[in-house]
């Protein structure tokens, strides 16, 4: 699987490269600044990009901007955004194109190597994965949304964190069948038409963020 990495701290950039190569990724490019990122993404069209939000020269949100711009040109280009902190605002911006294949994690999650690699693979496969921290922030701020039950909220949280039905079932000690029942109920309560489109999961999260 071909990866482009964008990270300005040499230590982290090399670490990420080594880590991903150890898990049989092919790191085609490792970028250390903002302006070079977009051309690199467009040129390599990687299977997944791992991008730091904050990059030189401005040290603002250049990485995020480049990732969003790249996804405008190449819809659904899988991007995993890393940051020292998480903002629901950025999560919403990443989700607005509803194309899936986005992730948003705290940098420190890298320390749980296997989980991190699993997340990269999941995003590359078109899934959505958000940091538990950002999900917690989304959940903490408002009253239960659209009359979701506590259990349904929990399921939605796991969806946002990027878990499959099977993984959710295992975590909540329920059967997969019950999970999909909950999910259908969530979609109905959020007013989303039934369809087989996988992106519904993304849209559910997005709806939640917009509430």
């Amino acid at each position, binding site marked *: 699987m071909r990866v482009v990495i964008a990270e300005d701290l040499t230590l982290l950039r090399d670490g990420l490269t080594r880590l991903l190569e150890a898990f049989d990724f092919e790191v085609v490019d490792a970028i250390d600044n903002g302006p070079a990122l977009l051309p690199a993404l467009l040129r390599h069209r990687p299977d997944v990009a791992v991008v730091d939000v904050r990059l030189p020269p401005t*040290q603002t*949100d250049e990485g995020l901007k480049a990732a969003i711009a790249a996804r405008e040109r190449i819809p659904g280009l899988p991007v995993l955004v890393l940051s020292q902190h998480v903002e*629901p605002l950025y999560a919403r911006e990443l989700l607005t194109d509803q194309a899936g294949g986005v992730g948003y994690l*705290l940098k*420190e999650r890298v320390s749980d190597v296997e989980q991190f690699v699993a997340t990269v693979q999941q995003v590359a496969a078109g899934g959505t994965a958000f940091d538990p921290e950002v999900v917690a*922030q989304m959940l903490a*701020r*408002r009253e239960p949304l659209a009359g979701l039950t506590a259990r349904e909220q929990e399921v939605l949280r796991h969806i946002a964190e990027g878990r499959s039905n099977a993984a959710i079932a295992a975590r909540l000690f329920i059967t997969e069948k019950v999970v999909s029942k909950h999910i259908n109920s969530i979609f109905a309560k959020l007013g989303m038409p039934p369809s087989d489109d996988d992106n519904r999961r993304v849209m559910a999260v997005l709806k939640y963020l917009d509430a």
Partner: protein
Amino acid sequence: MRRGAPGASGAVTSIGSGVTQPEIPRGDGLYRFRPEKAVTPPGGVVAPPRDDGGMTLRGRLRTGVSAIVDALFAISLALLNAPVLMLWLAGLVLSPVPVLGAELLAVATTVVRWRADLERRLSTRAGLPIRRPYLPAPADAEVGTGRWLRWIITDPATWRDAAWLLPGALVAAALGLIVVAITAYGLVGVLLVPLWLHLGGLWFGYGVFWPTANRAEAWLALPQGLALLLLALILAPLIRRVHVSFARLFLAPTRSAELRLRVAHLTVTRADAIDAQAAELRRIERDLHDGAQARMVAVGMTIGLAERLVRRDPTAALKLLAEARAASTSALVDLRHLVRGIHPPVLAERGLEGAVQALAMHLPVPTAVRSHLPGRLDAPLESAVYFAVAEALANMSRHSGAKSAWVSLSHVEGVLAVEVGDDGNGGADAGRGTGLHSIERRLGAFDGTMAVSSPPGGPTVVTMELPCALSSPKT
């Protein structure tokens, strides 16, 4: 809503400098500084004059009536001037007398300043506010001490007040009498003559115009009286302006007093800023010491232990290493919270607009953000405004019981205006809430002001204004 105009709205508490200028009664809002106007013309007009109803007939009528009433006030107050002056002179002459003298001078000075303040308030009613020129009292000057005496004696405003008392009384009485006399004569013409005729009196001379020969002529007193009343209504505001302008010569701060007040204001806001900064540093130090630093020590110890165990008991070593990793993660959590409190990363990345939007997303109350800022603010200002908005929003979600709220950011003519409003219960009091007070301190360091409009029953609107420039838009 015109801020700072006394009585513009009963629910408006204009602060922003009330605290930093302890001598000025809260809420009169006369003491506002904008750097571009820091040195006002000799007149010292800071707050814009009130327009009592503008150009409408009703407005003019109201202005005229209030000016006539003020003339009556001015005359009665003028009568006080002579006794007040004598009291003050007595205080001055007797001030070398131990104990009693100083007390007498203190009382006399208080009375003089009270009288001068009444005059200033009268000027404010006339739409030409006069600021208090007095030097702030030194911190350790108790009444009666030499230091206190020096404070009173060396303040030129003390002497200017005293110098004003006599001429001020004469001018006020003379001008006031003109207005009152015309009004009174007009009233006599309109009211008394009909009464007199009704009672059967025949002879009545009215006006400077003619003696009355018969009833028909006597009735002419009526239009004459009306004309005089009209004259009084037109003349009274003009005369009031003359009166106020005269008072201004003595009672307004001189140019050097303006600068002195400015220095006093800056001293207070600077001290506030330094205090706040020192408190911040202490908090950061404590957080680091108790949080991340302590955890990193634990991480080091655990890894050291694992090193010793790795050969003998690899399973236990692995467990320790996992523990160390967990501790390093929680150290990072601590650091992240700390960083958010110092300078929120989203503020650095997105500027004020983005950061306020992010803030709104965290709130339990749905909050709309309207914003039009063509560029970015200087970093220190940005941070101050961000934390001020955060404080206002936190206050709102804690106390207001609002269903929805809004924030608007705009930059017009070199002034950043921020409004935070909600549809809650109202009744927010800038004088009591420590939250609102801390906003004021944050903004004060940048010559910013804050006003709270929060009538009982809501809605509440917190308005903040800061003079500042925007940098060119981000590329």
